[in-house]
């Protein structure tokens, strides 16, 4: 077991007063709190900082810790508590926070009496878990069954083990990006008689190669040749459920949105709409005949697309 230099963890001098310790903790906690900092490693760093503060903020525990430090503890060095050591200041776990009790072996041997695995409060409910659940737009339109596979921590003989679980879930029609769905009793297993935790599925709508999502509506780009926009045409437009025919009026403008009712995403009461956005696309190259046709159009037309600039 390694000795932990809590003063070093908080970046304070061993003779720092309570106020300086509190300030140092708050500063580091803000920086590394996993709810504020999604970076990998931030959570471990936060746990380290929280553990140091748990000891140093309490005068009794700090005095005991200082005594051990005198006894020869150096950061990173192998450490055994002195024979007969029994922490008096004790630790029963503070409620509320997420990291209550998830401390190092060093801490447990100092303040929880011996190096034995910590006994969880009897009958403790299993932990809740949250996983990201990718859902395809096509799947969101009607109720769909999906197989979910995830790892869940399970405590066996005092050791935490990750166990793979898989289950089939019915995703209701009309789920939205960012929504969270709760699956009762599918989280970490409870101890003894206690109930299992819950599993939360964080819904993520998978980006679609054709459709963009705007609330319950979908948007699809309809590429048109310049002459199709000018003369009007009929195009076949893909939707989530089959194809439809769409009439493009003569003299249609790029960026124009055509509403196709009821072809969007599912809602609690029905379906959103699909918007077809017209996009005029130039052919990548032109032969001499086509160039000549463009030229005669240019000679004939008085259209000035930059009239607003007033040049």
């Amino acid at each position, binding site marked *: 077991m390694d000795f932990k230099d809590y003063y070093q963890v908080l970046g304070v001098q061993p003779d720092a007063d309570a106020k300086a310790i*509190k300030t140092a903790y*708050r500063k580091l*906690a*803000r920086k590394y*709190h996993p*709810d*504020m900092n999604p970076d990998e490693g931030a959570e471990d760093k*936060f746990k380290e900082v*929280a553990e140091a503060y748990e000891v140093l903020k309490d005068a009794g525990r700090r005095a005991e810790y200082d005594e051990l430090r005198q006894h020869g503890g150096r950061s990173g060095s192998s450490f055994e508590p002195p024979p007969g050591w029994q922490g008096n200041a004790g630790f029963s776990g*503070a*409620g*509320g*926070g*997420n*990291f209550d009790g998830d401390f190092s072996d060093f801490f447990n041997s100092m303040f929880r009496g011996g190096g034995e695995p910590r006994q969880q409060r009897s009958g403790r*409910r299993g932990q*809740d878990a*949250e996983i990201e659940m990718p859902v395809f737009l096509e799947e969101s339109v009607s109720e769909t*069954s999906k197989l979910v596979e995830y790892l869940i921590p399970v405590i066996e003989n005092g050791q935490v083990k990750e166990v793979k679980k898989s*289950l*089939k*879930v*019915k995703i*209701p029609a009309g789920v939205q*990006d*960012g*929504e*969270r*769905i*709760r*699956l*009762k*009793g*599918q989280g970490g297993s409870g101890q003894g008689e206690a109930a299992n*935790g*819950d599993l*939360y599925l964080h819904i993520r709508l998978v*980006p679609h190669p054709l459709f*963009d*999502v*705007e609330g319950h509506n979908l*948007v699809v*780009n309809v*590429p048109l040749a310049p002459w199709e926009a000018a003369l009007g045409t009929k195009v076949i437009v893909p939707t989530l459920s089959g194809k439809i025919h769409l009439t493009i009026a003569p003299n249609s403008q790029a960026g124009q949105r055509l509403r196709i009712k009821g072809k969007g995403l599912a809602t609690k009461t029905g379906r959103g709409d699909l918007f077809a956005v017209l*996009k005029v*696309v130039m052919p990548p190259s032109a032969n001499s005949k086509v160039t000549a046709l463009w030229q005669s159009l240019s000679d004939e037309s008085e259209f000035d697309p930059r009239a607003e600039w007033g040049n």
Partner: protein
Amino acid sequence: MTELVLSISLHELCQYDELSEQIIVEVVDHGIAQPVAGRNVVDWVFDTTSVHWLRKAVRLHSDLEIDWVAVAMVIDLLRRNEALEQRNRHFEQQLKRFLDC
């Protein structure tokens, strides 16, 4: 098939997270989470998304030792950040579509 729910009751929240009713009332009073049903406190029901923010708020309050007003501001900003990230993803995808063809 697993039982799937979109809500959680005040009673369940208190029991599962070892929270006092008073803490949840604080969170609601500060506009961090809103019950979707229940006229009286004991009947409150939350949707699963606001529970996510409620739990975050409780953790921040106890781990960072900041008061509820500050927690409410942080949660508000985190939510806004999440919404902006989502919009950003959306616009990036649109831009890509626009530039591609």
